[in-house]
């Protein structure tokens, strides 16, 4: 029955040659498990589309109803917790998979000639996905959603000259509220998917048109004595033909893609069923006890804001964002050396390592327990009152003790070995540099604090 249907269609549309051309075309040797992350990205995007479209059946994009519509989805709609959970967790997974996909492309030097345009569309897609994430997590309109949007739109406001406009365009005015949620919804549901589909189509067209880049060789394939004199295009085509000659049909690689997609699907499903969609209390613009923290994939940037201080901070924020964007976008143009093997690109590999350590390190630092929610550890019962004062006076907002606290001021875990009681007392009451003065502290509180700090050795 199926075969008869296929042959009926094929007799009219002559599709089989295209289908076989797609499946049977040869791909270079060595296209293996490292190459599953591109198709995994596509798979997770499809999962996002499927679950996202169905979520709009119940979701209401209004400040009054958004939160309760999400509660309705997760608590009352059959499989609601699963559908919303898969949407949430595959979004997080997507960020990781895209990161690994980019890293693989970078290490293999696959962004170099003739695949520059594939890389550029890929970078655009990375930022489109981050824009999806940013607009998506306002939609539940819980505390995290509201405050992350306040901070996120203020970051846009840091841009010189156009910052004010960018902020107002994002918020739909100056207030974060009804208009903000409505336009984030419009962007998340209509504008970004349209852009995404366009760029994914272009990206895939390029991948299929040019073929998957062969894994890099330490020494390029020998084209014979005349090879070196050939034009670049000719050399590339001959070498790629040799790579494909030694390769295997594409359908063999597809199996690995499918297995990895299945693993991701099971992982995302497990997270959706067990963890679900953690929802914070409803958005409260008047909350003063709330400690805003972004979604984990923006923690690195949130942490970076600790280190940028002073009058020029807005400009630094803007330059860093612009710098990262341009460094990625223009990579194929400033790194034009033909060498692709990672061992022959030590500088590029070092840059990648610094970048990865930077992102992971900042994410780790940003993800630690929010400061000032608990008293730091006290070495003895006698100094416990001082530890409580340390927390009560807000010291932990800036200073870390025993791994808890802020990082804007010095780490005080061993301050007792570095300062005398008098020095500590002077520092607290008079301040110095970035340390504000606290002259109004009652003597008992000051003494408890000094007792505590002195005991930290």
């Amino acid at each position, binding site marked *: 029955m199926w075969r008869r249907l296929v042959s009926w269609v094929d007799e009219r549309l002559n599709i089989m040659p295209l289908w076989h051309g797609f499946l049977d075309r040869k791909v270079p040797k060595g296209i293996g498990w490292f190459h599953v992350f591109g198709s995994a990205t596509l798979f997770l995007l499809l999962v996002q589309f499927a679950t996202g479209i169905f979520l709009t059946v119940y979701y209401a994009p209004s400040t009054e109803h958004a939160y309760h519509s999400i509660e309705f989805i997760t608590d009352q709609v059959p499989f609601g917790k699963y559908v919303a959970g898969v949407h949430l967790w595959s979004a997080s997974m997507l960020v990781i998979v895209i990161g690994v996909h980019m890293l693989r492309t970078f290490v293999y030097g696959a962004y170099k000639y003739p695949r520059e345009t594939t890389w550029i569309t890929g970078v655009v897609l990375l930022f489109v996905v981050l824009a999806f994430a940013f607009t998506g997590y306002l939609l539940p309109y819980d505390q995290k959603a509201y*405050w992350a949007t*306040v*901070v996120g*739109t*203020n*970051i846009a*406001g*840091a*841009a*010189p*000259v*156009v*910052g*004010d*406009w960018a*902020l*107002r*365009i994002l*918020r739909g*005015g*100056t*207030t*974060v*509220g*009804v*208009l903000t949620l409505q*336009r984030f919804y419009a962007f998340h549901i209509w504008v970004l998917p349209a852009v995404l589909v366009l760029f994914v189509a272009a990206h895939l067209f390029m991948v299929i048109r040019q073929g998957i880049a062969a894994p890099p060789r330490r020494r390029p394939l020998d084209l014979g004595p005349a090879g070196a004199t050939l034009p670049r295009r000719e050399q590339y085509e001959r070498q790629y033909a040799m790579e494909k000659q030694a390769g295997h049909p594409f359908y063999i690689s597809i199996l690995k893609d499918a297995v990895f997609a299945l693993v991701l699907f099971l992982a995302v499903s497990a997270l959706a069923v067990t963890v679900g969609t953690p929802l914070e209390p409803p958005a409260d*613009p*008047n909350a*003063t006890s*709330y*400690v*805003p923290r972004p979604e984990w994939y923006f923690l690195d940037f*949130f942490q970076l*804001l*600790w280190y940028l*201080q*002073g*009058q*020029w*901070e*807005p*400009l630094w*924020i*803007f330059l860093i964002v612009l710098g990262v964007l341009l460094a990625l976008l223009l990579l194929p143009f400033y790194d034009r050396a033909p060498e692709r093997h990672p061992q022959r690109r030590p500088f590029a590999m070092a840059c990648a390592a610094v970048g990865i350590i930077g992102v992971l390190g900042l994410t780790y630092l940003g993800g630690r327990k*929010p*400061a000032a929610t608990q008293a730091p550890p006290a070495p003895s019962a006698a100094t416990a009152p001082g530890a409580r*004062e340390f927390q*009560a*006076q*807000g010291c932990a*907002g*800036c200073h870390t003790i025993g791994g808890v606290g802020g990082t*804007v001021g010095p780490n005080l875990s061993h301050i007792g070995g570095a300062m005398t009681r008098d020095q500590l007392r002077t520092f607290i009451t008079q301040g110095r540099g*970035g*340390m*504000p003065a*606290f002259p109004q*502290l009652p003597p008992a*509180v000051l003494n408890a604090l000094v007792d505590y700090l002195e005991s930290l050795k």
Partner: protein
Amino acid sequence: MSATVPESGSQPTRREAVMSALGAIVGFIGAALAVPLVAFLFGPAVSGTRPGGLLGRSIPPTPRSRAPWSPVGELAALPQGQPTLTTVQLPVQEGWIQSTMAVAVYVERTGPDSAVIFDLHCTHMGCPVVWNQAAGRFLCPCHGGVYDANGRVLSGPPPRPLDRYAVKVDGGVLYMGALQLPGA
């Protein structure tokens, strides 16, 4: 199926002319649609504002009142020299919705007939600042901003003092006015 366009003769220039005309038509329709659509998207949000300076800035997300003045309460009932978290009922318009919203602000009586009202958002990135009575400081939980009771920055990244609202006292009642955003 082979290409039907001849290699030479008058055909290529004719094709170029058709392509140019096509480009002109597509370009015109695109531009004619883009201008109103961009204005549609940006319009109400940015109309009447000027471009910013070299240094961008944060803007409090607090709803803006439609009324010039809104009553906060009896001034005498407020403790002196101590910022107090107070909610003020403001008439607000957001797009097509008119409502009365409770907006939280820090109110501090500074004398027998004077007071200041602070917006509760850190001027760094807009996180909600907390008045720590024990320390006598406003503390921001996000990046360690510290302000004194007058809203002056003592430490951390905030680029300007806490934003204030206009105040007036009339018949012993404190009224809250517009947000005083520097440079606005």
